[in-house]
């Protein structure tokens, strides 16, 4: 009984430490279990890199979208790379494809 009481005291103190250590405004980032912390960090990093790469590609794609149509010569992205563009064309019917082609051939001014 005495031991249980002692243990409870120690535990309360420890939890109090945890509680107050946490509440200084910083969010808890620690996972306590090392394997999970490592998995978390790695997955987060991979996600970030994946996302940034994708975003850069995406922005490039959007930037090229108009120049792709306007001037056929300066196309950093090949048509095959542009999966979404192809899908877009596929989604439209044959009649719409003609419209897109018209748009593509239109020259500025």
């Amino acid at each position: 009984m005495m031991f249980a009481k002692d243990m409870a005291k120690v535990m309360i103190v420890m939890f109090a430490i945890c509680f107050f250590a946490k509440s200084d405004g910083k969010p808890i980032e620690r996972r306590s279990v090392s394997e999970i912390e490592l998995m978390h960090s790695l997955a987060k990093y991979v996600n970030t890199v994946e996302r940034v790469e994708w975003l850069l590609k995406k922005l490039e794609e959007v930037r090229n979208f108009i120049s792709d149509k306007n001037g056929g010569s300066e196309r950093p992205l090949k048509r095959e790379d542009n999966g979404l563009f192809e899908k877009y064309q596929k989604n439209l019917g044959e009649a719409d494809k003609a419209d897109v082609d018209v748009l593509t051939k239109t020259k500025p001014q």
Partner: protein
Amino acid sequence: MHPRLPPWPRLLLLLLLLLAGAAHTTGALPRLCDVLQVLREEQDQCLQELSEERTRGLSTVQPASGCEGLWDNMSCWPSAEPGQTVEVECPRFLWMLTGRNGSMFRNCTRGGWSAVFPRPDLACGVNVNDSANDTNEKRHEYLLKLKVMYTVGYSSSLVMLLVALSILCSFRRLHCTRNYIHMHLFVSFILRALSNFIKDAVLFSDDGVHCETHRAGCKLVMVFFQYCIMANYAWLLAEGLYLHTLLAVSFFSERKCLQGCVALGWGSPAIFVALWTITRHFLEDVGCWDINANASVWWVIRGPVILSILINFILFINILRILMRKLRTQETRGNEVNHYKRLAKSTLLLIPLFGAHYIIFAFSPEDAMEIQLFFELALGSYQGLVVAVLYCFLNGELEVQKKWRQWHLREAPLCPVALGNSFSIGTSSLTQSTKASPSEPSRAGAGPAPSESVI
């Protein structure tokens, strides 16, 4: 007994308070899969609108030189007359990534749409440079090195543990409560190592975006991984509780103790992991459940783990205290240096069995994370190996075994000691002292046979 309530309800209340206090989410960026899905939805919606517009347009007059509605892989531009400037909001997927809103414009000229202005990344506050900086890259490399190190550690542990487990299983003489608990601990170590390999294979092997393909399987692996890790902590606690019970409690049933240990070791992790699975499913169903960004959900796993580490550490200290007391009574006869040697030896022996080293970083600040990861992964992955060696292979250490034979030939041993006298090496003196000093009737000595079979 005093009439006051035991401290447990209060403790429970405190735990609940703690959980409530921890209920805040650290903002996590969405996975690429989710972003792509939003983008796809937007695209479908846009294309549908455009085709509807077009079919309507076909029946009426076609605008001669206007700009047709356009999906530019990012935003949906409605059709416009020449000279018009069209404004659209930043696409939802960019908003997901940046959390900032903005607008983009295109002019409709006679020659068609102009380029977007301002540039989409500037307009929507996309900053791609800050997230992929050098420190992150270095950290990533460090983590990958750690992954190699713990893979080596876990595989060597796995081999040793399998051998140790088969030895303990195959010799009938070694079957006793203490060794049953050791066997369960070994199995939990094996599972922990295996689940690490499986997790790594599922998470990090395949490149590319795996969105819907094996999400359920991936989550299942993650649940299994969490369960194995928790089970390992639970069995370390069971070892601690068992040894402490042997030393500190006079009368107890071995069979019931083993049943309790099994319930604690395999049952309690199942409860917590099930709870985690449910909360995760409803509160943070993101990706493959490999990123734990929501602190309150993570406390379901983290809380019990920290609690088990803490309780085990307290048990560890208490056992050492009991051991020291017993050894001190022997001091008059024995050599003092010898006495401290024995104490140190038994301490070192008990650390891997109890997982007492986990306490070092249990409450460490976040800055020490890299040291903690090295200590607990690169070195900690050998814990299974050390436990297997100490509590199976080295158990029959010659000198101790001789002593053991001397002691146990006189009494009928519960669990003969060919290989299985786990706590014998350093702590055998404890039994000796309990036996040799009738002047101090200790509680451990007052117990039935187990006290000498354990120590």
